[in-house]
């Protein structure tokens, strides 16, 4: 039996044809030989990951392997150790091969899916690399002619993300109980000219051959304190525009809900940046673009709201006491129908001339800003903006009494968001640890205000949905009753959050928290 946990992987120079046979038999004091019969297999491989490389970042690799008519999905660690395997059919057992990109739900239930779920979440898996390998495999025998290891030479041609031939790779896999011998053999092979211990798994080799790298860092910007504030704003806004554009394709194709979510986050940040710090940009640039980004933000709202509902649907129905989940099926179907329509509208907007014009002109404007610009240093500018936002948040919070209407809490939430966003936007100016300390209370307050408002919004939405479903005659009484139960539960959660707000605000507005915040922006050079 071969054991995956004891593999020795070696990289060869490009185009090398290492003479392994003589290395095996003549290598330093080695007493191994290669069996005469070699098998050659063709293996088609597709590596899958989420758009944001969640598997790769978690130290995992998921590979769809097709060899001699069988297709399997293999999850390995980045050291090549096998963690789980599943037949790559669809969950309905039709035996049909999965089509990527796809959500995890298409995998059959089992250990593989269970391992992937917490990492992949709601994201879709899509191919990140494709290749065909020609694997020549031979047994390595000891003097008793016992197989102690398998030696494989893998010649891989990559077809995606670009066509390329990868350098040959050697793999020595130990038979169980013969790890030491296989290890010795591996070290001998590693001393051959042009051969060295592998730097990564086959995915790394495939991507390297194709001239790309996994999990590229995007959106990371580094501001320096003395940078002119206009130039700094242009850097920040260009990175946000990159994020918007990177998520357009996945949103239009509806690959998973995170594309839209990330697109919206970038739009919201752009709008906040223009509102809170747009003054740093030359002329009326900020004022001219604010309505356009508002249009973009509004375009995305209906679909996202419905996504939130649908993603939380199971959790929402699990709390039902009197009604059953089935009572809500018409509600779910209604939401799905409505979402289809909303998404069509969204896709049309993202393919429109208006959107194309917005992004291309905005990019050009930002590029010209970087060249000229106002001279105020960004650190000073940031400290000033943050102090203003801090004051606004404190004032909004102090206004709140037991009798305050929900709109006052919403106002506080907005002010907190603005403050938080400024701290993030200029985050690269500050020490990361200190920044984390400084936003602790603010974060806790925001979570609580978020829970309050989400419950409020969902409650009023559920009333609106019920009205429309009644009007469409698509709501049986049991469904409406079940929806009523959900609304009641939302009201309970909202009350709970409301009770917590006072304590959280007191913690935020307290001496210690406030001075940590002030110290942060003043600490800069």
């Amino acid at each position: 039996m071969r054991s995956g946990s004891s593999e020795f992987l070696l990289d060869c120079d490009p185009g090398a044809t290492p003479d392994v046979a003589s290395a095996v038999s003549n290598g330093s004091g080695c007493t191994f030989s290669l069996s005469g019969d070699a098998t050659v297999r063709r293996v088609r491989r597709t590596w899958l990951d989420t758009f944001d490389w969640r598997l790769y970042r978690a130290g995992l690799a998921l590979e769809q392997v097709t060899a001699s008519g069988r297709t399997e999905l293999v999850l390995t660690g980045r050291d090549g150790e096998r963690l789980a395997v599943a037949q790559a059919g669809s969950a309905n057992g039709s035996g049909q091969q999965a089509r990527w990109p796809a959500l995890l739900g298409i995998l059959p239930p089992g250990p593989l899916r269970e391992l992937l779920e917490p990492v992949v979440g709601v994201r879709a898996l899509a191919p990140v690399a494709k290749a065909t390998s020609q694997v020549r495999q031979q047994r390595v025998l000891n003097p008793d002619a016992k197989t102690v290891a398998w030696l494989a030479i893998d010649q891989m041609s990559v077809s995606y993300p670009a066509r390329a031939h990868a350098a040959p790779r050697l793999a020595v896999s130990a038979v169980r109980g013969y790890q030491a011998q296989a290890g010795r053999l591996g070290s001998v092979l590693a001393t051959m000219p042009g051969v060295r211990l592998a730097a990564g798994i086959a995915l790394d080799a495939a991507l390297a051959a194709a001239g790309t790298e996994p999990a590229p860092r995007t959106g990371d910007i580094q501001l320096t304190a003395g940078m002119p504030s206009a130039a700094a704003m242009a850097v920040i806004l260009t990175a946000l525009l990159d994020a918007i554009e990177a998520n357009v394709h996945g949103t239009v194709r509806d690959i998973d809900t995170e594309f839209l979510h990330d697109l919206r986050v970038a739009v919201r940040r752009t709008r906040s940046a223009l509102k809170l710090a747009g003054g740093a940009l030359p002329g009326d640039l900020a004022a001219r673009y604010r309505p356009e980004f508002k249009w973009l933000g509004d375009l995305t709202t209906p679909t996202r709201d419905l996504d939130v509902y649908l993603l939380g649907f199971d959790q929402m129905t699990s709390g039902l006491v009197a009604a059953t989940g089935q009572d809500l099926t018409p509600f779910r179907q209604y939401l799905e129908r409505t979402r289809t329509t909303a998404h069509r509208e969204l896709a049309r907007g993202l393919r429109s001339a208006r959107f194309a014009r917005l992004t291309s002109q905005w990019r050009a404007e930002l590029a010209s800003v970087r060249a000229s610009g106002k001279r105020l240093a960004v650190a000073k500018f940031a400290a000033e903006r943050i102090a203003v936002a801090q004051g606004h948040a404190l004032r909004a919070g102090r206004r709140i009494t037991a009798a305050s209407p929900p709109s006052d809490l919403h106002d506080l939430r907005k002010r907190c968001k603005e403050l938080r966003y400024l701290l993030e936007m200029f985050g690269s100016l500050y020490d990361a640890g200190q920044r984390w300390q400084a936003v602790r209370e603010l974060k806790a307050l925001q979570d609580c205000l978020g829970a309050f408002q989400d419950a409020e919004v969902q409650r009023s939405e559920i009333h609106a949905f019920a009205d429309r479903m009644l009007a469409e005659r698509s709501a049986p009484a049991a469904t409406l009753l079940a929806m009523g139960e959900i609304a009641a539960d939302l009201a309970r959660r909202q009350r709970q959050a409301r009770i917590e707000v006072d304590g959280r605000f007191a913690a935020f507005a307290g001496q210690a928290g406030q001075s940590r915040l002030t110290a942060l922006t003043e600490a800069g050079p």
Partner: protein
Amino acid sequence: MKILATYNIKGGVGKTATAVNLGFLAARDGYRVLLWDLDPQGAASFLFRIKPRVKGGGQALIHGKRPVDVAIKGTDFENLDLLPADFTYRNLDLMLDEAKRPDRRLASLLAPLKRDYDLVILDCPPSISLLSESVLHAADLLLVPLIPTTLSVRTLDQLTEFVAGFNGHRPKVLAFFSMIDRRKRLHTQIAQDLPAQRPDFATAAIPALSVIEQMSVHRAPVTVFSPRSLASKQYASLWQEARERLKLPQPS
């Protein structure tokens, strides 16, 4: 996980020959099989070209100083692993005597392997001993090779009686005729009559065949190097009968 033991207090009756061939056939069917060569002579280890050596010896295994699974070696065949013999197994009886509940020791040593294997085959040394008692308690099925003589049938009856006296877990007993010499009238006579009369006898029997002796030259089970021989066919039927008695589910 089911445990099968090839068992007979006598040596040279075909225990090891049966253990290695059934091990290979079970693995070929897709079961994950572990063969434990309990005989210090190491005949089964030899047939799989694996050195009869266990780090720390039988001592470390029996007293649980080393988990059983680090001593396991892969054979050249998929799904078939071997726990090798070691010359210290000569003293297994003494070691067991020092252990707690010696008669249950083997069963508890194997328990952690439940998830890794569908079938464990114990290839026992000859002799009556604490070890054999421990084997009888651990096994789900005793596969007993018998040379067809009236005397050997009597030893089978003694074994059956002994096992019937156990409290709780009792292994099933399945005897079969081994090394039937077709030139001896008595052999063929007994081998023909008994299986029809007794439910604890397998229908399949293994004749004396020179191709089986050649296993030690090839250092492989006969079912590997001569799969179409009569010997291989007989081992295959014997495996079918053993599999049914063990009630092994289809391999995953």
